[in-house]
């Protein structure tokens, strides 16, 4: 397999480009593919299938060459294991531009995380492509859209958009894979925007429904807010470091990561020289001015270099400011800001539930499994540049988000909205994990969540496909009608609740969610050991969230599949989905159960946790302490000691089980009436039902505020500026009239007319000279000649003397 290693970038690049090719083919030849666009599905599906094969082949090459490290959790004696920088392949694809000596190029950064994301994205995307060929079959024919009403109240009729759906899906796959493989922040940003664009296309797929187009615009605009912050972060990095590359590229010098965490500094995070220099610009000027004799450029640079360490550490006399520290913080916060938008974190989480207006496969692929995970992925990818302070902010945001999402999901009645808020909540979990130093836990939850959330969404899609409604109150008792969907969704619910048995034959056995959620809780617990105040809040939220997760997931499942049918018509109409939709469900269910099992290394395959462990960025294997705020991120293996694992395992298990039991009490055994509870906690219910009034607050504060400011400005415009401009224009017009009357008509025109009149008269008077008589002309010539002779001789002989 070593022999294939040099071709790894090309393989992955091919995997990236295949969906693009598919997009182009469908875009250019979609209408000629025939059969109402059905071949478009096969083009797109075969492209993503080929990408999957290539990705798994690349994974095979990668793991054959790079051994995954042993899980340090179970081997306490290996604590002092030597840490190395993770294996990474970087390289330049194509230089785009060069600014002031710094290159911007298309390059790649391949490590185990990239490989993992490739496999995950392509696999899930393939499942969803197959699923979509069944789910979207209505679009093969002209569609009567009952949710999009025309002005006269009739339903809209439009041609089917089967090919267009797969076209957008292909473009999305290309963008997502490009985002994963990109080797610098700029490229990441470009693909970041591309996935945003695809998201816009897909949310607004039913563009005639005003709710869909509004949701698409909302998602796009809210994301712009996050991207604005991201641009600030990128500018901070570019201006100070002169590069946006993640890793060291052979020709382009050291990348961002190695400038921040140099090998000489044992990979500890240190404000890079460039940032210190940028932040201390005025000190450098002062230094240049203070010296008695003029300093040469080199001498000044040497002097600055000498004092940079002191500035960085804040050890100069009388000034303990850590120069550049704030800039580094701004860069990290800026990058995170982009992730907040894309991953639907508080306070920009409002777009994700609305994005459920898109077709369900899109919700599964884009708005739960991959694209919204891109924010988490970017945090994981750029983890080396985050200061502990920034990480704390990330953790806080994640904590708030997970709590908000979970609480709103409790009362939602739309099946897709429940899943959407569950997604928001789970993304909050990931951010929380990353923020408290649990890099591996966060990434692991990203992968497992992608599996079971896509499964859940596809299942909900299957249900919606069968009963043609999103509302859970209209469902119920569907398990007998659609057993495959029901049981696969049950697996998904169990997985997301994190059900598992802490120890069987020395190994914890559970569904995939169990491993990742336990890892997160362990890390939060270990964080609580170091930072009691923050840690208690986080741990409480995380445990409560786990309980709530189990509750709302099982509430959804009970409401949908058990009990008596609440809508007889819909129930009679319901049927199991076709095979092409069920098979992906089963595949994903298998994945949701088994993706995180630690038993694969018995047969020599890399397990999920060890793969992630191999991808662990440089320097994330030691404690990180903030210097401004007293906060410490414990290194991750501290969460795996028995003193943490024991209580956390019990607590997590208890939370999940209690959540399930509570749901059963309410919705299965009906011991308690949910309506009673709703009445007794009416204010709370109302707040939750209105999603904490976020949309209303934003509407009131931002939208209305913007409109009010705009109205004021418009008023100012109309009353002051327009008047001014109008009066100026009137002045100009009257001036022009005056000048026209006096200068132009009397002066210029008069002169020109006078001149032409004179010329005409002269011509008329000279006209009579032209008699047309040849003889006269001859005479004139001769007379003139003689006269010339006479004048000349007179001049020569008399006057000139």
């Amino acid at each position: 397999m070593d022999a294939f290693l040099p071709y790894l970038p090309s393989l992955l690049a091919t995997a990236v480009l295949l969906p693009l090719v598919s997009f182009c083919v469908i875009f250019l030849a979609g209408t000629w593919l025939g059969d109402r666009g059905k071949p478009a599905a096969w083009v797109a599906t075969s492209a993503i299938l080929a990408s999957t094969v290539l990705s798994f082949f690349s994974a095979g090459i990668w793991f054959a060459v790079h051994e995954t490290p042993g899980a340090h959790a179970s081997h306490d004696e290996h604590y002092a294991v030597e840490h190395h920088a993770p294996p990474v392949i970087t390289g330049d694809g194509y230089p785009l531009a060069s600014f002031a000596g710094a290159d911007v190029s298309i390059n790649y950064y391949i490590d185990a995380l990239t490989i993992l994301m490739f496999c995950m994205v392509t696999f899930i995307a393939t499942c969803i492509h197959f699923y979509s060929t069944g789910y979207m079959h209505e679009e093969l024919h002209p569609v009567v859209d009952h949710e999009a009403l025309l002005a006269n109240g009739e339903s809209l009729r439009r041609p089917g958009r089967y090919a267009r759906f797969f076209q957008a899906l292909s473009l999305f796959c290309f963008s997502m894979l490009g985002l994963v493989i990109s080797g610098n922040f700029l490229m990441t940003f470009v693909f970041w925007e591309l996935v945003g664009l695809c998201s816009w296309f897909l949310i607004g797929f039913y563009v005639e429904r005003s709710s869909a187009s509004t949701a698409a615009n909302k998602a796009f605009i809210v994301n712009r807010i996050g991207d604005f912050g991201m641009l600030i972060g990128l500018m901070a990095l570019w201006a100070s470091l002169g590069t946006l590359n993640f890793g060291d590229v052979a020709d382009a010098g050291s990348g961002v990561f190695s400038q921040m965490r140099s090998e000489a500094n044992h990979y500890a995070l240190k404000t890079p020289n460039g940032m210190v220099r940028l932040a201390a610009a005025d000190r450098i000027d002062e230094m240049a001015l203070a010296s008695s004799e003029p300093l040469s450029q080199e001498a000044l640079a040497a002097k600055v270099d000498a004092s940079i360490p002191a500035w960085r550490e804040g050890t100069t006399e009388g000034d303990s400011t850590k120069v550049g520290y704030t800039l580094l913080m701004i860069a990290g916060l800026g990058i995170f800001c982009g992730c907040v938008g894309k991953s639907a974190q508080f306070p920009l989480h409002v777009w994700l539930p609305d994005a459920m207006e898109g077709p369900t496969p899109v919700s599964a692929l884009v708005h739960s499994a991959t694209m919204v995970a891109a924010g988490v992925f970017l945090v994981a990818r750029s983890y080396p540049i985050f200061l502990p302070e920034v990480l704390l902010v990330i953790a806080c945001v994640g904590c708030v988000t997970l709590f908000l999402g979970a609480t709103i999901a409790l009362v939602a009645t739309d099946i897709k909205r429940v899943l959407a808020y569950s997604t928001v909540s789970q993304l909050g979990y990931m951010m929380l994990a990353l923020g408290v130093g649990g890099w591996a836990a966060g990434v692991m939850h990203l992968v497992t969540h992608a599996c079971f959330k896509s499964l859940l969404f596809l299942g909900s899609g299957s249900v919606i496909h069968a009963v043609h409604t999103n509302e859970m109150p209209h469902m119920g008792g569907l398990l007998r009608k659609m057993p495959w969907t029901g049981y696969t969704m049950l697996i998904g619910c169990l997985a997301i609740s994190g059900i598992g048995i802490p120890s069987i034959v020395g190994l914890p056995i559970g569904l995939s969610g169990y491993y990742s959620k336990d890892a997160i809780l362990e890390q939060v617990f270990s964080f609580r050991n170091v930072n009691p105040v923050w840690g208690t809040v986080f741990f409480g939220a995380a445990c409560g969230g786990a309980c709530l997760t189990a509750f709302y997931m099982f509430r959804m499942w009970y409401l949908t599949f058990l009990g008596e049918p609440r809508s007889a018509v819909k129930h009679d109409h319901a049927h199991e989905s076709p095979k092409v939709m069920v098979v992906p469900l089963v595949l994903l269910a298998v994945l949701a159960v088994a993706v995180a099992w630690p038993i694969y290394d018995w047969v020599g395959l890399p397990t999920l946790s060890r793969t992630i462990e191999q991808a662990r960025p440089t320097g994330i294997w030691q404690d990180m302490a903030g210097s401004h705020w007293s906060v410490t991120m414990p290194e991750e293996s501290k969460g795996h000691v028995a003193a943490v694992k024991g209580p956390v395992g019990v607590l997590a298990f208890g939370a999940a089980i209690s959540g399930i039991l509570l749901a059963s009490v309410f919705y299965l055994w009906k011991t308690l009436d949910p309506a009673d509870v709703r009445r007794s906690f009416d204010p709370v219910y109302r707040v939750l039902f209105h999603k904490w009034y976020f949309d209303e607050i934003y509407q009131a504060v931002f939208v209305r505020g913007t409109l009010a400011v705009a109205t004021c400005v418009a008023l100012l415009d109309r009353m002051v500026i327009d008047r001014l401009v109008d009066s100026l224009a009137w002045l100009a017009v009257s001036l022009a009239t005056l000048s026209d009357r006096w200068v132009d008509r009397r002066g210029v025109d008069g002169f020109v007319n006078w001149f032409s009149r004179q010329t005409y008269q002269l011509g008329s008077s000279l006209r009579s000279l032209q008699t047309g008589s040849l003889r006269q002309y001859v005479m004139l010539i001769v007379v003139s000649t003689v006269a010339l002779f006479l004048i000349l001789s007179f001049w020569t002989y008399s006057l000139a003397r």
Partner: protein
Amino acid sequence: MTPLLAATSEAAINWHTVMFYVIALCACGFAVIVAMTNNIVRMAFALIVSLAATSGLLFLAGAYFVGAMQLMIYVGGTVVLLIFGVMLTAQKAFITMQTKAGDWILGLLVGGTFLAVLVQLVFLMPQWQSSDYQSVADAQLVAFAQELKSQQDRGEEITPQQRRKLELLAAKASEGMPQRTGEIGLALVGVRADKIESDQPGLAGYLLPFEIVSVHLLVVLVGAAFLARAKRHHHGGNQR
């Protein structure tokens, strides 16, 4: 040997001068007839005689080739052309078209003034009024003959070169050494045989004007043919 020029005796009539006066009188007289007559046919005839006489003047001035051309082109070509035109247009009404007396008086007055000015100018230069060509050539011949004679008296032989030079001088005195036609031909193709080579840097000949004139003539012929072509749909019957 034609006695072009008379002998050295002072009172003897200079026949060259006589010929000049006769021919010049002929040319001027017929020119006056051209100007004075109103009959277009007579005018054409008088013009032919005047031009032929002018060619005689050219011969007298030693320009044999130009004189020959004058005869051939004007008398043989241009005037035939003119007569052709006269015959085409010579209807009774046009053959004698009276000029008004006022025009006559005015024309003669102006022309007379012009002639007076010109003749006054022509005779302004004293060295132009007579030519000493003959006397100089005679003197050179006599001097050289006497030199040869004295040489013979001393008993020395006359060399072939000296004999050749004597012949040349004799020819110059008796025949006037006209320009050779061949030299004109060479000049028309760009070579000046009458000048030494160092005096003519670059192109001293008339090749380019010759070519221009040839093309010009061609254009003129085409243009004339175009202008004079028959327009049968207008005045088909008027052409004779």
